[in-house]
């Protein structure tokens, strides 16, 4: 409980707050840190997300030492190392080790140049035309693992490949806002946009550049051996081998352009069972519990590990858990029913009972650590079963013989589905089921495997309600989830599977992406969050917090809620 915070310097000289997370972190303390961080951000006039002060760490004391290996346990297996191909989080982590993007997002949401020599801004002439023209200067010392120089042609090729209709590229979102991209010289990339698009910088922080000189010769990029057998990147680590079903070995790229790498080897070990993973962490067989980390139920056990052996880090995430209501169902078209369900929801057994106070209650999709978070929605939700009952009475739902409300002969009953096998979600469902029964609502549990749930059942809006986690990502734009133009069953291209159609929300979302001034965007998203808090297309429950166990000897591991995997700065990790 000593050393709560100390100031430290990370590799790039940015000041970040440091905390000893072996200390017990209570929810109150978390909130205090968040408040302090928010205040600091305002004072420093920083743009970008301010990380929860107590939740990041860096090491200032000793100079990095070279050598050693780190083994990270993963509960899912990375199976494709080409960053163009569809990915899940664990896979993205390996992409981060092997490849580089133009810039990175740090835990505070600031952009850090990586392949770019500097971040383009209006001030330095990198952004022109009111946000429609971009010029990016590249660093001149970046090389591919095979020794070839990394040039502007590679960047252009990467964008073209993402947009290539014959390539099963993971995404065209944001990339399709770019109208043209070209390379006036080897170290300059120039691109133009059809219209200003505020999330672009965040999108490009996730565009990992692939080698043109190798992939342009590929007969079929989708099935190339590059993807699984010999990926060639420019990152801090080089690919050595993938023993399928067991582990992936990477070794240091000693001619890396950035700081580091300090480790000799980075191994990713596939351990499908989280309990087994924790056992191996406790037995010192692995150094990091990756992506899904330590299950909340094992957190008390993790805290008992000696300080000299392990650190337990809490990472706030941009994902929030909510009940998504399908607006195709007349039941949920009635706002009073949605509000009644929310008033009938007591989050305390979830936040305190299941999560032992580690997570925060959510009232909005924007995580509290984001610059776009609207503090006024805090407390918008209260547990008030009497009010819930009144709302339902007013809406014409009256208690039936079995205690479940009835209107025009229809019972107030619906199915709730989530991914089967997810313990925490199953527990939340059972708690909500019991709570809602008390206001006369019958929620039936009907779970299915993730691969079924997220198939047509979810995509084509065949569900009634689902309990899911939705990630905001580093930018507060939520168009693909909430805009009426992005409803899949109406032919939309997005993820608005709840079929939410609210003109006011549409208008705010459109305004948010076309505005590049952050202060003005903040006002737009604050308004949006207040509208959503009343209209309730989703019933937010809590904001995710990742629990990661890290070997106490490992320095530099820094949780970052703006990226999907902790590997974002693996080049600066070292073993004490």
């Amino acid at each position: 409980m000593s050393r709560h915070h100390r100031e430290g310097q990370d590799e790039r000289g940015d000041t970040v707050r440091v905390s000893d997370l072996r200390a017990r972190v209570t929810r109150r303390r978390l909130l205090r840190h968040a408040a302090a961080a928010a205040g600091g951000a305002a004072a420093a006039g920083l743009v970008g997300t301010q990380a929860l002060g107590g939740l990041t760490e860096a090491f200032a004391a000793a100079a990095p030492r070279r050598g050693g290996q780190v083994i990270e346990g993963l509960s899912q297996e990375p199976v494709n190392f080409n960053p163009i191909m569809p990915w899940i989080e664990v896979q993205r982590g390996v992409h981060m080790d092997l490849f580089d993007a133009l810039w990175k997002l740090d835990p505070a949401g600031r952009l850090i140049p990586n392949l770019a020599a500097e971040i383009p801004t209006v001030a330095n002439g990198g952004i022109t035309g009111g946000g429609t023209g971009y010029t990016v200067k590249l660093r001149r010392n970046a090389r591919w693992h095979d020794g070839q120089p990394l040039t502007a042609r590679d960047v252009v090729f990467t964008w073209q490949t993402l947009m290539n209709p014959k390539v099963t590229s993971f995404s065209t979102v944001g990339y399709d806002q770019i109208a043209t991209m070209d390379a006036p010289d080897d170290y300059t990339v120039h691109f133009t946009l059809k219209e200003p698009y505020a999330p672009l910088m965040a999108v490009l922080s996730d565009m990992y550049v692939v080698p043109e000189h190798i992939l342009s010769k590929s007969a079929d990029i989708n099935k190339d051996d590059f993807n699984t057998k010999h990926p060639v990147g420019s990152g801090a680590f080089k690919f050595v081998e993938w023993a399928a079903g067991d582990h992936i070995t990477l070794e240091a790229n000693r001619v890396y352009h950035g700081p580091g790498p300090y480790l000799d080897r980075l191994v990713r070990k596939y351990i499908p069972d989280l309990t087994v993973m924790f056992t191996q962490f406790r037995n010192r067989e692995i150094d990091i519990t990756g992506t899904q980390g330590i299950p909340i139920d094992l957190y008390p056990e993790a805290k008992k590990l000696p300080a000299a052996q392990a650190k337990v880090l809490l990472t706030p995430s941009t994902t929030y858990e909510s009940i998504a209501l399908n607006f195709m169902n007349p039941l949920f078209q009635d706002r009073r029913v949605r509000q009644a369900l929310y008033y009938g929801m007591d989050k305390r057994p979830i936040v305190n009972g299941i999560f032992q106070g580690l997570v925060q209650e959510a009232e909005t999709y924007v995580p509290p650590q984001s610059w776009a978070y609207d503090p006024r929605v805090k407390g918008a939700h209260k547990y008030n079963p009497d009010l819930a009952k009144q709302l339902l009475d007013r809406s014409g739902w009256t208690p039936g013989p079995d205690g479940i409300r009835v209107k025009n002969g229809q019972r107030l009953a619906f199915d709730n589905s989530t991914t089967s096998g997810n313990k925490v979600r199953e527990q939340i469902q059972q708690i909500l089921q019991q709570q809602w029964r008390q206001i006369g609502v019958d929620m039936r549990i009907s779970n299915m495997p993730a691969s079924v749930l997220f198939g047509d059942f979810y995509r084509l809006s065949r569900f009634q309600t689902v309990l899911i986690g939705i990630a905001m990502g580093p930018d507060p734009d939520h168009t693909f989830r909430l805009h009426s133009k992005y409803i899949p069953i109406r032919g939309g291209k997005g993820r608005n599977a709840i079929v939410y159609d609210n003109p006011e929300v549409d208008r705010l979302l459109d305004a948010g992406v076309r505005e590049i001034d952050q202060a003005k965007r903040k006002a737009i998203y604050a308004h949006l969050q207040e509208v959503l808090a009343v209209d309730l297309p989703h019933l937010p429950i809590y904001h995710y917090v990742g629990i990661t166990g890290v070997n106490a000897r490992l320095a530099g591991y820094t949780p970052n809620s703006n990226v999907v995997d902790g590997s974002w700065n693996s080049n600066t990790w070292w073993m004490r």
Partner: protein
Amino acid sequence: MAAYAVRRLLQAVPLLVGISFVAFVILRLAPGGPMAVYAQNPSMTEADMRRIEHLLGLDQPVYVQYVKWAAGTLTGHLGYSYRTGRPVGGVILERVPATLELMATAYLVAIVLGVVTGVISAVKRYSVFDYIATPAAMIGLSIPIFWFGLLVIIYFAATLHWIPSGGIATLGAPFSLGDRLAHLAGPAGVLGLWMTATWSRYCRSSVLEVLGQDYVRTARAKGLRERVVLMRHTVRNALIPLVTLAGLEFRNLLGGALVTETVFSWPGIGRLYLDSLNNQDYSVILGLLLMSSVAVLAGSLLADLFYAVADPRVRLA
């Protein structure tokens, strides 16, 4: 006998077609799909998923997909994994050695322990040993193998630290036989002991049956030493039918291996099957079903052939 083998092989062909068709239809008519794992990826939209599905041919009618797949399979190409874009044959084959290592060790444990306890139980029938070993074998048949594995991990790995809690080798360390065996001990021990129960029961009743045969009585009557009667006349003859058991049990062993691999994070085909199911990687699931069926059929054919060689009284028809 060669003719018999050929006929059995020919009979297997419609069987495999049947298996592939049943499996294909079940997989494709069910909800979900290989793209669902990406549904929570914040940068992939519905449009991206449809574009990828189209490129992978997942939007074609089921019968078209089956014909394409079957045509490829006939030429020895089982298609590409939807998750990795790699050829299915390679994806499966690289997992086979780990599973074989596990199964062979477990078989060895099961046969040695099973035969020894089975023979002793039969010869010393109604002895204290028999009274303990026979119900113990039944417990082995009744215990859920994953629970057994879990108990082994809790006790031997987490509490006593005698064995690692999972994986096939210590990462980063140079290859050493001791390390390899330590990793193998848990899963092979669990799987082997589980199979021992079956072997011991079969062996016991087989020996008992032979002990009742005329020629054993004759041998005893001739005044042959009990050891000779037992080893040369009884056990040898009793073990021959067990060869069939080895063939028949192959299927159960494969099923047991799947569960054991999951509990001990063993990187074999059982683990691959579960991962492919979780991701609805249809082509790999189909490939595994087909290849495991081939293995099961081959196992029973080999057992029959071997039985015929070992026991001249058996004639293959």
